[in-house]
């Protein structure tokens, strides 16, 4: 139900429409070694279940947040970067949820920082769609939706 092209178009649309940030799909999926990443997560729950993760180096997360807050990257508070990445996950998750039939809802987003060396590879039921922005990688990882059985009441 989710495919790479749909995710690529969605991410590009969000970034250009709302943030005026230019990003390009890339086949390169590696995050730089020994780097702090911001990792945002949102879950889709209900008739279908899925997860959406967005992660990128802190440097790019600050650029994204700076665009949202119309500020300079080095003037941001950590909670503002967290807010921005969480909202990015929220928008992406909401649009992914929109293609799923049945009654589904979004979790609230969560955001954490992790070392790039601690980032796990995508599981077999997950796919990564990667982009380059300001010569830095941004990855959207989604878990292929699973129809629940039985559905939650």
């Amino acid at each position, binding site marked *: 139900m989710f495919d790479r092209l749909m995710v690529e178009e969605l991410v590009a649309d969000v970034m250009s429409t*709302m943030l005026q940030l230019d990003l390009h799909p890339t086949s390169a999926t590696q995050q730089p070694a020994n780097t702090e990443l911001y990792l945002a997560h949102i879950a889709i729950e209900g008739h279908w279940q899925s997860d959406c993760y967005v992660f990128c180096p802190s440097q790019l997360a600050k650029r994204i947040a700076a665009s*949202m807050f119309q500020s300079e990257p080095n003037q941001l508070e950590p909670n503002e970067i967290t807010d921005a990445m969480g909202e990015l996950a*929220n*928008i992406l998750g*909401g*649009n992914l949820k929109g293609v799923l039939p049945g009654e*589904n809802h979004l979790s*609230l987003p969560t955001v954490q920082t992790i070392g790039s060396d601690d980032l796990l590879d995508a599981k077999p039921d997950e796919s990564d769609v990667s982009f380059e922005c300001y010569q830095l990688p941004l990855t959207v990882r989604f878990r292929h939706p699973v129809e629940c059985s039985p559905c939650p009441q």
Partner: protein
Amino acid sequence: MKILHVDDSKAMRMIVQRTVKMAGFSDLTFVEAENGRHGLEVLEAEKPDVILSDWNMPEMNGLEFLKKIREANNPITFGFITSESNPETRQEALDAGASFVITKPFTPEAFEQQLTPVFAQLS
């Protein structure tokens, strides 16, 4: 014209308000709340003309917030700005008493289209 803008994301509050201004609506005052529960307090204190609300928020989400307002027989114009993009959610919003739903990502034109008739009616 006073707008109560309810969203748990400060970043999104800034983006929405910026986009509304880009849509050509410059003579507006925004008051803010972080969730529906806070929104009820600000609604009582500030008596806005229009509410713009996110859907997915902690403590009290946008739908619960709208239902509380309508239960109190307050007919204030209420619009959602949300990443919830499926038709069922849109219909649920309209059935609960929302006047419009703007989905994220949005453009200034989307706000112009939805808010122009709202402000014309309130003027």
